[in-house]
């Protein structure tokens, strides 16, 4: 399970990096095209928006694995070991519930958009697959949060 999750997060990470690199290149190409060749890149704006989906949703889980999400630990760090494990278990459970709910609703949203057959205004790309990507990203994030919760719970129950 752990190895599988790590593998999936690794793939998402690569997609996220590619999204960032592509977004930079698309925007620079658009600017260069406009000023140097008088030919802006069609749909550059739209492409940037879609690449943001890979960039952000692809990076949620890896950010979680690297402890990159912000919490306030000054109060909890002063507590004894057991109380700290309890608060971490609680925090991870609540985070799992929140991002789990977001995953569920985003997936539903993707389904609705798929049925409606929505496309982007300029390039005519179907939007639903990108919403699925978003849901996949938040699902990975949720699973990473489950892993954190399990680890905290084990610390809590250890004699």
């Amino acid at each position: 399970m752990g190895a599988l999750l790590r593998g999936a997060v690794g793939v998402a990470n690569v997609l996220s990096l590619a999204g960032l690199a592509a977004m930079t290149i698309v925007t620079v190409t658009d600017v260069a095209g406009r000023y140097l060749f008088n030919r802006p890149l069609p749909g550059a704006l739209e492409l940037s928006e879609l690449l943001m989906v890979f960039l952000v949703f692809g990076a949620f889980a890896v950010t979680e694995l690297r402890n990159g999400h912000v919490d306030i630990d000054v109060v909890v760090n002063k507590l004894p070991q057991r109380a700290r494990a309890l608060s971490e278990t609680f925090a991870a459970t609540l985070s799992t519930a929140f991002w789990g709910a977001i995953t569920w609703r985003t997936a539903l949203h993707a389904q609705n958009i798929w049925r409606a057959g929505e496309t982007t205004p300029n390039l005519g790309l179907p939007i639903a697959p990108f919403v699925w990507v978003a849901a996949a990203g938040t699902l990975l994030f949720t699973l990473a949060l489950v892993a954190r919760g399990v680890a905290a719970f084990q610390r809590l129950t250890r004699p």
Partner: protein
Amino acid sequence: MTATGIGILGIVAMLVLMTLRVPIGVAMGVVGFFGFAYLSGWQAALAMLGLVPYGNVASFTLTVLPLFVLMGHFATMAGLSQELYDTANRWFGHFRGGLAMATVVACGGFAAISGSSLATAATMGTIALPEMRKVGYDAKLATGCVAAGGTLGILIPPSVMFLIYGFLTEQSIGKLFLAGIAPGAVLVALFVGTIALVTWVDPRLGPAIVRTPFLERIAALRRVWAVAALFFVVIGGMYLGVFTATEAAAVGAFGAFLFAAARGKVTRHSLTEALVATTTTTAMIFGILIGAIVLGYFMAVTKVPMALAAFFSSLPVPATWVMIFIIVTYVILGGLMDSLAMVLLTVPIFFPVVQALGYDPIWFGVVLVLLVEVGLITPPIGMNVFVISGMSKDVSIQGVFIGTAPFLVAMGLLLALLMLFPDLALFIPRTMK
């Protein structure tokens, strides 16, 4: 219970969750979700939960954010921070406290190509701290000046904080950036003055080093041309309307990458590091942002911001007193909270008040960013101080906080200047079309 009462209850619940170490984005989101569900129904709340994340990520407005973050990381990769510090050293090193002065000046220079205070502090810290300690600088002064100097990252454009503020209040990013230039330059000068003063009182804190001959100093100026070029292309391009903010950021990131490539600093490893640092920072910001937007839905139906705005504008005291109250609130919150969470949480609440009182929204953006800077170096939670104390093992967190204290006075002075002369912030953006 009235909707406003539920809103206040929700804010209290959220703060309790945050103290229990619930990630701040989740704390805001959970309270926002349940509050909104209670007031507007479960169906509406669940639908909102499905629309907010995708809708705000796949939105052109915020594409500018990762691009400016990337520009800063590429600039670090290119070694531009080292060049800035070397040049500043040649100009200031021979003064008492000169290396510390060089540090804050270099921080100001790096802030002109980086949008983050943490990155500015961390980048200049790795370079400046060893140099200062080598010649026997006082540990508190050395760490304090880097932690305080680093905060310049968000005042001098580009600035992630101005981007967030502009996003929340629908103000022009270009104008906000330009409004930060003059106050940023004044703050650098005030920091230099602060260092001159503390080392005049106790010269042992920061011994002078050997003077660099004048001609060599002039020659050294040429080494910072890359930083100057990036700043003028990016900020100048926005000023003249050649680029939108996103385009300026992409061109800046690309330019910084070219400088890194020209200096032979691009390796597979360094490139991956810069990209990963950018995507994870972006994900961290969006993790909080999504929670804050969900909370925003709740706050809007509670009408807490409107009630506050009506209350404050009906008070029989001059607007200045309300502004001072807001400033004091921010100083307290800044000590207690993460800066991004504080801005995302408070701007939707205070901005209507500020507008109702007739303050300029661009001016308030500058004041807010300055207050965020104060928050970054005031206890108990001062992120810049945490970063710097993490980098210097022999100085305690308390020690760094003490070291930053004199710089808080300089910040207070700038705040007073901005209150007395709002044009200090506004005269540059006013010339923009």
